[in-house]
Structure formats: structure tokens, C-alpha cells
């Protein structure tokens, strides 16, 4: 069930550069449902479900990593100095509950900035250590903390949690693989690493797979809260077919095929034109000699905060679209 899969994946520790636990969790879910699974040198989990002879190879990508803070130094007083891993805004880290891989909890705090614009240099993490020696027993330089897991239902259809970006798409992709039987085209699902620092995992995976088509699965921003109008995307109105963001202009034939799949599946969908941001799609489209690529997005409010919010109806719409899409003739 999509919600159970989502809940499983949301609770796993997996900041950019340390995605192993997420890969393990996905592997457990997919055991017995796919034709092959392997991990490459960067840590991408590459999974295959074979299609018919004469079908094309479609690469789907959902990234396992989420943003965090890395320990760069330790004060004599026991506070941890940190910097961002991926796009972390200072605002999202003011008095925020964070957790390390080994289970150590902390509070991320922004110190008074004395009129300067707040930046990473003003952040510190309080893990309750009295001095440097105590802190060094709990964490090492290079350790990464993430928003502590915290899934909350909102209303009838919605959930807020850290790491919706991009575990909801990982859940979507996993569900697709579990529910798919005998696709016409070969499906290669990449659960990718290091998307948040520049689509690095997807680039390596796309090079290895050399697919005929690519589709990235990711969250997109929202346009339906006070004073936020763009992108013109609303929660609950269906998965969003991306026309462009700042990493890629969706290849017309793939984006049109996603729209056609939505219409054939008779589910709601939206058109997304994003003025910022990027997805694995950019890396896939520009790999090797070029690959026709598009992106299917889950609308998400408050992206890159501890309360990323999605609507499960959009997830259902996305799954229905993908089930039709994988059987298209390309």
C-alpha cells in the first residue's frame, strides 16, 4: 500500500552522501518483485523489470538523499559548527530538532547575527555536551544530521513530514515496481544518490544505463498558499507534468506522452512550469549523446523544510499515469 511504503521510507536516515540505509529499505520492499538489483560505486540502487522484446528501455529516477547539516568543527564549549549539505536555508534550521546517524539528538540554532544576513556560519547544533571532549564522544567531524522524523496527517488526504523530497517519489517508484507486471518496455528504476548537491548520482546512473527515454520523479513547489502564486500548481489537483525548471526543458515527446497517459488513465493532472530548481531529469537528458526526458512531479508545500506536505490523491494520480506510460509505444 502506497501509504505504508511511504511511511517506511520517510523514517530512514539518508542525507546526501549517506544513502545506504534508504537503499537497504527499498531493496527489502522490492525483493521478489523485480528481475535484477545492483548498487553502483556511488551508491545508486539500480533495479530492472524486463519488458517485451522490441520494447524500449525507460529509466525512472527518484532520489534517496535528503538535505542535512554536516559537522565541520567543534567549539571548546561543546557546540557543533556546521554547514549545509544540499539546499538548506537558515530559516528552516531555527530551533529545529535534528538527529545523527548514531541516534544522537540535537537542536539546530541560529545565533544572533548582529545585523548581518544570517548564513551557515551563524548556525550551531546543541547536543547537550558540556565541552569538546564530551561532544567528541558523541559525534565526529564529517557526521551529518537531518530533520528528526516526524510524520503528521493533515486533514483527510495530506501528510507533512521531513524528507517528502524525495522519499514520496521513491515510494511511488517502489509501488510502481511492486504493482507492475509484464510491462511492454523495460523499466530501469534508479533510486539515486546525491541529487541535492547537483544530480550527481543520476548522471552516473544514466551513463551506465544509456536508456531510450528518461522520466525523473520528484516533488515540485506549490502555488496555493497566501501570497504564493507560482508555480501555478495546487495540492490535490493531480500529479504535475513538468514543462520546465532550471535544470531541464522537458523533451516535448516525453512530456506529451505523460499527458496522453494521464488522459488515457482518466486521472487529474496539472501542467508545471517551475521558475527555479532542478531534478534528476536534467542529468538524464544531458547524458551521453542526449536522452529524451521528462519529469512527473508531486506537488509539495514547504519544500526543504521539516514539514514538507503532499496530498495522497496526487500520488495516486501519478501512479496511474506511470502504469499507462510504461506500456506506451515509443
Amino acid at each position, binding site marked *: 500500500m502506497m501509504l505504508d511504503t511511504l511511511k517506511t521510507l520517510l523514517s530512514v536516515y539518508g542525507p546526501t552522501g549517506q544513502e545506504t540505509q534508504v537503499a537497504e529499505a527499498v531493496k527489502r520492499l522490492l525483493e521478489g518483485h523485480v528481475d535484477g538489483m545492483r548498487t553502483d560505486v556511488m551508491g545508486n540502487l539500480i533495479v530492472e523489470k524486463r519488458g517485451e522484446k522490441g520494447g524500449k528501455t525507460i529509466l525512472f529516477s527518484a532520489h534517496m538523499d535528503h538535505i542535512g547539516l554536516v559537522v565541520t568543527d567543534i567549539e571548546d564549549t561543546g557546540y557543533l559548527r556546521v554547514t549545509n549539505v544540499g539546499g538548506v536555508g537558515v530559516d528552516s534550521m531555527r530551533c529545529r530538532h535534528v538527529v545523527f546517524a548514531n541516534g544522537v539528538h540535537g537542536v539546530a540554532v541560529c545565533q544572533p547575527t548582529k545585523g548581518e544576513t544570517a548564513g551557515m556560519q551563524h548556525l550551531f547544533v546543541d547536543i547537550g555536551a558540556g565541552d569538546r571532549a564530551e561532544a567528541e564522544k558523541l559525534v565526529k567531524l564529517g557526521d551529518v544530521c537531518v530533520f528528526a522524523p516526524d510524520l503528521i496527517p493533515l486533514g483527510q488526504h495530506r501528510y507533512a513530514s521531513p524528507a517528502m523530497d524525495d522519499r514520496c517519489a521513491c515510494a511511488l517508484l517502489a509501488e510502481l515496481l511492486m504493482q507492475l507486471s509484464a510491462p511492454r518496455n523495460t523499466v530501469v528504476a534508479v533510486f539515486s544518490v546525491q541529487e541535492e548537491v547537483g544530480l550527481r548520482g543520476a548522471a552516473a546512473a544514466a551513463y551506465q544505463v544509456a536508456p531510450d527515454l528518461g522520466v525523473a520523479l520528484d516533488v515540485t513547489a506549490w*502555488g496555493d498558499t497566501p501570497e504564493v*502564486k*507560482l*508555480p*501555478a500548481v495546487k495540492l490535490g489537483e493531480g500529479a504535475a507534468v513538468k*514543462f*520546465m525548471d*532550471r535544470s*531541464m*526543458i*522537458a*523533451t*516535448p515527446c516525453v*512530456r506529451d506522452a505523460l499527458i496522453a497517459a494521464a488522459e488515457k488513465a482518466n486521472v487529474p493532472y496539472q*501542467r508545471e*512550469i517551475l*521558475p527555479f530548481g532542478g531534478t534528476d531529469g536534467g542529468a538524464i*537528458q*544531458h547524458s*551521453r*549523446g*542526449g*536522452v*529524451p526526458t521528462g519529469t512527473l512531479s508531486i506537488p509539495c508545500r514547504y519544500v526543504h523544510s521539516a514539514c514538507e506536505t503532499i496530498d495522497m490523491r496526487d500520488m495516486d494520480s501519478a501512479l496511474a499515469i506511470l502504469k499507462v506510460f510504461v506500456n506506451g509505444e515509443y
Partner: protein
Amino acid sequence: MRIEDFLKEVTAVPGVTGNERAAAEYIAQAFRPFADEVEITPLNCVVAHKKGSGPRVLICAHLDEIGMMVSKIEEDGSLRLQSVGGVDPRVLPGMRVRVYAREGMLTGVVGATPPHLLKEADRKSNYNWDTLFVDMGMDAAQVRQRVRPGDTVCFEARYVEMKNDRVAAKTADDRACVAIMLEAARRLEKMDHTADLYFVATCQEEIGSYGALISGFALAPDYGVAFDVCHADTPGAPKNSTSKITSLVTSKGPFLNGFLVKKLEEAARENGIELQVAVDPRYTSTDADELSVTRAGVPTVLLSLPIKYMHTNVETLDLRALKEGGRLLAHYLAAVEESWEDELWN
């Protein structure tokens, strides 16, 4: 077809970055008489191959243009736009734009508040993407039926012939250089060349030279020639950022191969073609940047056509410089030979 006529038509064909199919088709058919093979790749690069024994040279000019995409349809039927590539929103007020909808091209007008209604404060701030809108001249219901978010929008396209062989058009960046490549291909029909030549009209330059990246990978050239526009002298430009509009420019700097630049200057000298020199301490902001590091690296030169008012729809160039560009490119490509390999790193 005269090169001026090609220029007039090719600059008007729609081909906003990422949605370049129409431009690719027009350019492919133009190259057919002058190449052994012409193909359009899945991402809309045009590759025109003029066979030779070697070395393999990839020459590129980009076919995509900056433009806009409809980001939203407002309640009153007006359209909001998002830039694709570096569009300065200040060029838009009062422009008649071309909206490419399912049924074909529709005209829209970028609205501007009438002067009578402007407050003093309004006059002091610029239009930006939040305040600009496109008036389609129909009611909201009709707009919603005929136009969709995601439809591409191009600048107004006029070809203005001015004094002294100057021409103003949209998309001189970079279809004027596609014209130069075509001119060179035409001339090379009557010249001997050993080099194996691939003229590529690349896609997606305006958002990161992706066309050059994937073409370099696919074609694995030995040498590269990138062709793009650069800035011509204009009042108010910072020092050392512009060139004379009357002749071509080549760049020197870390991204370009010193030996190949020398051979280019030689070709210019030997054929009486004026060639200015610009210096790029780092990025050239052209396909040269990506082409030169594809695969294991590609020694590359950059040639530029100076234009005024870059990234507006009145980009202005000198036709004689354009024609000389075709002549220089042809002579340089005819000179490429295998022995150059031994001198690349001296």
C-alpha cells in the same frame, strides 16, 4: 538562396530553447544541398556531415532562441510568462509576441499601463515578470480553450534592413552564425578539404550549452569550432567588453587551444580577412566552454560575430562581417590537416 534571405527566414522560425523542432527542420533542409548526410537528433540538434578522411572537426552554432513559456492563465484571460534563457523583461512592454498554441501561432500584446494612469513612483521602477502580462485580445474562456500553460512564446519577428549593410532581427543570436556555417558549407563544395566535417546547429545553448555537450559526446571530434555572437561597440558598455561590428572576433584564453587559434589567425591573414582578438580569462559563455571538455577533451577555437543589443528582438549586425565569416570558416576548415596533431601542445 542568398544568405540574406536565409537569415531573414531562419531568424523568424520559432525555436525557443527546449522546443526547437521547427527551427531544426528549417535548418536541416537548408543544409541538404551542401552536405553528404543531414540528420535531426532526438533532442533537436541538426548534424550536417561533409565527409573527409580526417581529422574530424565539429563546428557548431546554436539554433535555440531565448523566449518565454506561458506560466499561468489569469482569471481575466491574460497570460503570465516565464523566461526561457536570459530574457530581460524590460524589452517586453508594448511588444507584439507570438504565442505558439496547439492550433498554431497566435498574436499577443505585452500590456503596458497607459502613461495617463502612471503614478510618479511607477515610472521609476521597471517592469518585471510579476507585473508583465500578455493580452490575447479574447475573453478568458476562449483563451483557456486555445492557450495552455507551457505554450512557448517568441519575440516579435521583423527583419529590418538599415544603412551600411546593417540588419536588425531577433535571434541573430545565434542563427546569424548558423547562416555563417551554411555559407561555409556552400563554399566548401568547391574547395578541397581532408577534414571530416560535422556542422552542428546545436540545441539548448541558452540554458547551458547542452547541445554542444551531447553532440561532442556523440560525434567524438578531434577539434572544435564554436561560433556565437559577441557584443559590438555600444555606448555605456564596460571597457574591454566590446568589439567593432565590422569584422569577426576570435578569443584567446585558457579554454581555447593556442595552436589552433594561431592557425585561424593564419587563415585570416592569408585570405585578407580582418580578425579581431578578444580575451576570455575564463568562461566564453558559448558552446566552446562545453565542447572543449567533452569526452577526453577537444581542442577548440571560438569565432564570434559582433552584434549590438544582444537578447532583444532588434539584434543588429553587419552583413559584410557575416559573409566574411563564412569565407574565413571555409578557409580555416580547408586548412585542417593530420599534421596539426603533433603541434597542439607546443
